[in-house]
């Protein structure tokens, strides 16, 4: 059987999640490999969420937030940006390819961008193969 990546996507309520919704109502196609989880803001995402996803079988973690300057809570996405940067460093040291974690800014009007970046990410993870964090 060919490998189908499992990807957990944390999307902020005000932009990325709305962007995903727009992709849906515009009938844009993107792979069904992502499991979207709505969070209020990308700043809500603790590195623990990311590790938890990897520990429990995710092959990739996608984080979608509002563009810089547009966060509904003003600075949440800046916090996210720094946390993800540090978390990527941690993943590298743990032996996990940092490409498995991706942060993207997607506004509520960017349904197309959402479909594109998700498709790209799924392809990239497909190339990387399954993450065997338990071995």
């Amino acid at each position: 059987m060919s490998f189908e990546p499992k990807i957990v996507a944390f999307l902020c309520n005000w932009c990325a999640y709305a962007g995903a919704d727009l992709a849906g109502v515009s009938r844009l196609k993107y792979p069904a490999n992502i499991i979207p989880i709505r969070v209020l803001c990308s700043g809500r995402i603790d590195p623990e969420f990311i590790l938890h996803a990897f520990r429990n079988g995710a092959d990739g973690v996608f984080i979608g937030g509002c563009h810089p300057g547009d966060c509904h809570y003003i600075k949440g996405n800046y916090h996210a940006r720094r946390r993800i940067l540090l978390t990527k460093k941690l993943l590298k040291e743990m032996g996990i390819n940092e490409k498995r974690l991706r942060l993207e800014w997607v506004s509520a009007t960017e349904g197309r961008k959402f479909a594109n970046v998700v498709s790209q990410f799924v392809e990239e993870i497909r190339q990387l193969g399954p993450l065997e964090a338990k071995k």
Partner: protein
Amino acid sequence: MKKKIAMYWGAGCGGCDVSLLGVHEKLLDLLGEVDIVFWPCAMDFKYEDLEKMEDGSIDIAFYNGAIRTSENEEIAKLLRKKAKMLVAYGSCATEGCVIGLANLYAREEIFDAIYLNNETTPDGKIPSHELPEFLPVLKTLDSVVKVDAFIPGCPPPKPVLEAALNALLNGKTDFLSNLALCDECPRRDSKPDKLEINEIKRWHSSNDDGRCFLAQGIICMGLATRAGCKAECITASIPCTGCMGGVDGLSGVSAMSAIASLINGEDEEKERKIIESIEDVVGTFFKYSAAKLLPYGRVKDES
């Protein structure tokens, strides 16, 4: 009736055994209240003696050290069977401690560094005598057997240990603080309302001005570490490295999250530089809990 207690030394430095003596005169009271039935480090007991004991006959068994060899694992299981209550004593048993950082490397790499390619070991070879197996990864006590209580710390600081012994001998297990170390930190008042990190400094190469370490850009784990030690290290002008573990979950993850958000983020390039300058993320934030972070060892995903 006197309580029967046991103390075992797994993979660890021996500091935990010594820390029990650190309660000073309280030890005499303690010895009056208990019968030590097994303590290989201090008294002459054999594993056979332990095997012969009836199941559940020990009231409290303290296990210090992590599980690195098959022998450690065997005794952990044996003690679990013989004791009513099994207590993880110290950071090694609780979170794997400093030796848990070995989980960043494969067993072969460790042997290579110790026996084969080590300057101080000429003509190195891997010992082939009949020794207990060196397990592929280092494990914490609770990953092998059910644990009833944890006494964190490297080794458990006196106030924590006293509270723990007091509680445990009275059949209680709720002796840990639920606050972070900042709460009892002597430098607490020098913490500015708005903390912002513009540069990460290493403690040994900076001039400590006596203020909150984070305000000086020195990474201190106090904000995510359980209180109870009375800030012994900070009192000695050394930032907290987190031996008491987290209040809830891994302190390293919480500290990473908090410290990343304290970094000045006005400029993307600048914030990247600051974050890049944090050397050794696992060693900084998971110094005592790498075995919890990597329970199966380093992940093999280099591609």
